[in-house]
């Protein structure tokens, strides 16, 4: 059974068909990528899957159950987590606090023990901090633990967001342009981090523009153009697909005035 299944998904914004009649499925345990030219609808698709937009029509299923229209918070409880293209870091907290928020669903969130700082709450805090630190070590950013997030460099913040998303222990992790704005060595680090994540059994879906990264690590690629599915398959199949090449480079189908 597919982990994630999208059927006939459509979303319109004031006349623009951001996503149109899209059907797609994600198999567990593999790295999937969604690519396409700018404006193809990749982030919209992500936002639809993660409950940030409501679909105009169509259905989404997670582990066979309908999740169409559920809020991001409900989806998180079902094992879905994501990062954002425009970083949505909690700049009003330290790096480790960001990761600790990521663990929210697995923590004791009772109000009264926290309010009165009961021994159980103190123990819980200590354990939470230790687990968050461990996660930060895995993602290579442990030395920034107590630094305020608003003072951290961009590359570190990208990894922080991934650490926070991992803290939720998701079965499905969606990464929205994890390598955007990173230099080649930082991109290589993200590359190996993503592979490590996939090895632990988490299914990863990423939206990315960096073709080298995508072709290198994905088992399956979905290509979008103008909100519709253009092609899908293995990296080799996609590379050889003439429609894909045309969409990216601009082929005979398009007139000289079109973008």
């Amino acid at each position, binding site marked *: 059974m597919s982990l994630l299944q999208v059927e006939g998904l459509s979303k319109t914004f004031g006349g623009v068909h951001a996503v149109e009649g899209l059907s797609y499925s994600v198999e567990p345990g593999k790295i999937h990528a969604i690519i396409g030219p700018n404006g193809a609808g990749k982030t919209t698709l992500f936002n639809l899957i993660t409950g*940030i937009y409501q679909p105009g029509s169509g259905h989404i299923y997670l582990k066979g159950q309908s999740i169409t229209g559920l809020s991001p918070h409900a989806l998180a409880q079902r094992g879905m987590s994501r990062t954002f293209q*425009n970083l949505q870091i909690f700049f009003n907290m330290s790096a480790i606090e960001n990761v600790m928020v990521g663990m929210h669903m697995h923590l004791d969130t009772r109000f009264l023990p926290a309010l009165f700082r009961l021994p159980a709450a103190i123990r819980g805090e200590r354990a939470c901090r230790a687990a968050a630190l461990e996660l930060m070590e895995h993602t290579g950013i442990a030395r920034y633990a107590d630094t305020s997030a608003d003072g951290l460099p961009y590359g570190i913040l990208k990894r922080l967001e991934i650490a926070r998303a991992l803290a939720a222990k998701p079965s499905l992790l969606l990464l929205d342009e994890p390598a955007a704005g990173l230099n080649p060595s930082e991109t290589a680090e993200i590359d190996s981090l993503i592979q490590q994540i996939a090895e632990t059994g988490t299914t990863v879906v990423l939206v990315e523009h960096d073709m080298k990264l995508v072709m290198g690590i994905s088992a399956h690629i979905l290509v979008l153009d103008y909100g519709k599915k253009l092609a899908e398959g293995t990296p080799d199949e996609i590379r050889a697909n003439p429609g894909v090449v045309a969409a990216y480079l601009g082929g005979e189908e398009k007139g000289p005035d079109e973008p």
Partner: protein
Amino acid sequence: MFGEFLQYLSTGITVGATYALVALGFAIIYNASHVINFAQGEFVMIGGMATVFLLAAGVPLPLAILLAVVGATAVGVLVARLAIEPAKDAAIVPLIIITIGASIFLRGVAQVIWGKEFHALPSFSGDVPIQLGGATILPQSLWVLGVTVAIVFALAYFFNRTIFGKAILGTAYNRLAAQLVGVNTRSVLRVSFGLSAMLGAVAGAIITPISFTSYDVGIMLGLKGFVAAVLGGLGSGLGAIIGGLILGLAESFTAGYLSSNYKDAVPFVLILLILFFRPNGLFGKRDTERV
């Protein structure tokens, strides 16, 4: 019975016209900059109070009104220049607090200069009430309505037919694009504040013969004007006018038929209802957030 109804109707429309002018001021500034100017009511107060004191100093009424309005406009531009511009990139909550600070400051200065008492202005064309179908209508009400209508037409012309007006609207839609085509967005902010102050001051001058003025009339007027603006849909000029009239009528009929003590609660009950059920007001646009 019918006379009573007409009475409340005329009071409602008169007061509503004042609210409409204040609400238009909110709409203009909001449209130009997405700032809610909590000091809007203070411009109304300045219009009324300055006119009173100029008149007392011997200046003839028309000139007093003109000078008061000019003065208020200058104050508006100063608020834009000194309080809003330095904080133009601030988030919404800080901006709200800044304009509240400006309103308290203006009120405090007014209190120092003009004291705490109530003041009145003579009606523009006498006090002889007009009898209409059982209702008694003050001539000043007709002035209020007339001036409001004239202003509304003037504004419509300004925004739709003049380059500067269109520049202001353009800045509201897309600040960067406006800058790129050469619109001086800082001027737009100052002009919009000046224009709103002008509107508020005129409202203050024409309503004072009916409802008096003092250093703190601005609070309630500003808040009610804001309620009217939100009722009609923040940013919509037509909405501001209709919102103002609806608010004025709602207050008047509540005072007349239900309880005059709770008249002042009407705007705030209305705002809660509107914000709970139709936050974009009657004519407002929906905002979508890009993630």
